[in-house]
């Protein structure tokens, strides 16, 4: 596939590789496979909801579908595409290193991830199909006949994978930066990945412990979550959300960094407020651990805890808002070039603001109690997290596509799919806000007849959206093999990874570079001449 290793790209070179770039590509392929599976499950869920009294799937199968869809999309697509694919691809290239600190451990992380994927597939195809939701709340997950142990062991393998990655990448970023690559010159994408791995480091052990206790309760007769013997099922929800809430920032922080790279490059402007961006990233990583109770507002938690965590939840809007304003300020008076990655990045900002504003509503105690466990919540996280972060993933995949494949993607197809995905997302999920406010609970296979027309809008939107996703997948796969050859720096970007050939040689850098400037030094006198034609100066 790559020029350099064309002669020796046998299966062995991939399975036994310790090269971070090959591992990155393998993460991407695995994630995209599960992403496709999740889409297929979503098609089945959507198709059956054309009319009330779901004719396609019954309630039991529906539970299995949303369980695997949710777990697959969060744990196999969104988290690994950022902390697996982008972290592996970008961190060594952006800090000027030849590989990560522990290349073999990095390969082990990937193989644990593959192991977890096997577990997930088993959960779908073996008897006792998993129907406990991606959250796996007891007591249902303990009392059900479904194979809860698969859920637990998949989380264990994912956790082992993520912990090894966290140790590896934190060590890499701290010790292996090239000379002159100070903390103040790090790419914001690297800062985002750094923050994400800090969250993984402290969060993963807690959820791994929580699900282990689930296993003990179900199979060994312990009483952690057994209320009749002094335990508490709510304890599981606390432990689960202590990781699972920060987990959204494991996805979002690298995504924020990637958007910053793209916005700066295609606006031909230095990123606005670099320091405030870094502080905001780290503030979100820290605050993310103090808001999990907003998932338990209706679960009988004491008032003081609910009020404190409601306020902390709202506080997260501050660093997040800073980031949105910084992106807008970066674009302001920039020489914006709407190549596909930029289009996706702006689409992300749009969806993220829609989802984010509704998040303020969720965070307010009074509103949350009303909309808790309704489709409002589904609408909220599908806009603020699922769709907007998938937009960033596609933006990043297209942006670095020339770098990691050595070929260009199809620009025209990518732009068309952007609009399809944007329109599909809005049609598929905005009506859920209305349904949620009208009291329609989430995770229901059927619905009352008066909601039929609204549901039909979401079904149509869902199919548009899924068509867009499949077009993107086709674009990625086709271009990887048959795209035009890419130059080393097709975007005229200033960051370190664009100074080396596309695709990079296995050793990345001929000599370790000495860094003398930051990654966003757009707008030097020569730069301005190149980017801005004479007419544009009139503005």
């Amino acid at each position: 596939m790559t020029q350099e290793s064309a002669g020796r790209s046998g299966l062995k070179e991939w399975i036994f590789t310790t090269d971070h770039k090959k591992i990155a590509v393998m993460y991407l392929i695995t994630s995209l496979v599960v992403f496709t599976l999740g889409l297929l499950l979503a098609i089945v869920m959507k198709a059956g909801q054309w009319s009330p009294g779901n004719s396609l799937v019954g309630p039991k199968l529906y539970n299995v579908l949303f369980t695997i869809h949710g777990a697959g999309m969060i744990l196999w697509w969104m988290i690994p595409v950022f902390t697996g694919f982008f972290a592996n691809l970008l961190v060594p290239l952006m800090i000027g290193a030849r590989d990560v600190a522990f290349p073999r451990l990095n390969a082990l992380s990937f193989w644990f991830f593959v192991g977890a994927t096997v577990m997930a597939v088993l959960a779908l195809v073996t008897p006792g199909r998993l129907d406990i939701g991606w959250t796996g709340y007891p007591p249902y997950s303990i009392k059900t006949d479904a194979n809860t142990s698969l859920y637990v062991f998949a989380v264990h393998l994912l956790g082992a994978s993520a912990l090894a990655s966290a140790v590896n990448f934190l060590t890499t970023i701290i010790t292996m930066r090239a000379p002159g690559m100070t903390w103040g010159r790090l790419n914001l994408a690297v800062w985002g990945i750094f923050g994400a791995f800090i969250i993984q480091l402290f969060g993963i052990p807690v959820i791994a412990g929580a699900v282990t206790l689930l296993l003990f309760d179900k199979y060994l007769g312990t009483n952690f979550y057994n209320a009749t013997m002094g335990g508490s099922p709510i304890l599981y929800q606390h432990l689960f959300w202590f990781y699972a809430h920060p987990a959204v920032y494991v996805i979002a922080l690298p995504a924020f960094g990637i958007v910053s790279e793209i916005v700066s490059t295609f606006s031909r402007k230095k990123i606005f407020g670099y320091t405030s961006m870094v502080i905001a990233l780290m503030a979100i990583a820290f605050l993310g651990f103090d808001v999990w109770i907003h998932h338990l507002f209706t679960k009988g938690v004491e008032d003081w805890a609910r009020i404190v965590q409601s306020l902390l939840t709202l506080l997260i809007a501050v660093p997040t808002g800073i980031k949105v304003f910084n992106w807008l300020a970066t674009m302001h008076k920039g020489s914006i070039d709407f190549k596909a990655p930029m289009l996706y990045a702006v689409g992300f900002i749009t969806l993220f603001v829609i989802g984010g504003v509704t998040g303020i509503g969720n965070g307010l105690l009074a509103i949350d109690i009303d909309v808790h466990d309704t489709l409002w919540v589904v609408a909220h996280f599908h806009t603020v997290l699922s769709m907007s972060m998938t937009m960033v993933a596609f933006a990043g995949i297209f942006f670095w596509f020339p770098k990691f494949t050595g070929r260009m993607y199809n620009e025209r197809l990518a732009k068309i799919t952007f609009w399809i995905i944007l329109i599909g997302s809005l049609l598929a999920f905005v009506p859920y806000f209305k349904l949620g406010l009208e009291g329609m609970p989430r995770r229901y296979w059927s619905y009352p007849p008066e909601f039929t027309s609204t549901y039909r809008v979401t079904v149509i939107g869902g199919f548009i959206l899924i068509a867009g996703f499949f077009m993107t997948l086709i674009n990625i796969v086709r271009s990887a093999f048959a795209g035009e050859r890419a130059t080393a720096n097709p975007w005229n970007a200033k960051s370190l990874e664009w100074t080396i050939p596309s695709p990079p040689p296995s050793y990345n850098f001929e000599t370790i570079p000495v860094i003398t400037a930051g990654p966003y030094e757009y707008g030097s006198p020569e730069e301005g001449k190149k980017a801005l034609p004479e007419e544009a100066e009139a503005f």
Partner: protein
Amino acid sequence: MQEKVAYHGLEHHEVELSAWPFVVGMSGLLVMIGFMTAFQWKLPMLGMLLSGVGVVGILIGLFGWVSEVYAKKFEEGLSKLAIVIFICSEAALFGGLFGGYLYNMFPAPQWPPANTPAGVPPLGVALVLTVFLLSSSATIQMAETKLEKGEMGGFKGWLLFTMTLGALFLAGQANEWSKLIGEGFTVSTNAYGTFFYTVTGVHGSHVLVGVILQFFILLLALRNKISSRRQTIVKACGYYWHFVDGIWLVVLSLIYVLPNFR
């Protein structure tokens, strides 16, 4: 700061292929599938067989892995930082367990709950165990000092002493467990029993890992793979051991001492 910057093979960089991560990863999967077979499908023999093959696979994989690492003539010493980062996540694991324990303890009208056969396990045994563990922190420090001075004999001796103290701790704990189970106090008795065995068990498994690691270092030392210039693994083991010893004091306070004051 500059001298702390590390590079892979500054002069040259060979593309490394290694089969061992794949072997360990897939063996890990096999272990998990074995557990699943035993727990969910109620086929304990088949499950044990699968898990057993998996464990053997992991051991072979790790052995091959370590041989590859020690075949190189130098080390970069990055593992010292890595183990500190890893210990942070271990702290989070214990934090989660302690949090869960306190979450159940504070609202309870009586702790341990009334049906606990012999009440809180006696403090005396726990204090003896504490002495074993805390003194082993000092002995592993002695071992490191000897290694830095290049006194390999002293190093091996103190390391062996540390392992013995760790093993004594584990034996003492196993003895206490069997006595308590004999009195009818089990994981299923109530939430206190559940947490008692889980917290001390998780901690004990960490001690066990530490002792195995020390045994492994002793083997490396006997084969002259450890020296004052190649001691990252010893330092890493030392940090880990101090952490395991330190966290025991929290286990002691929460499980053995605190219930007496309620």
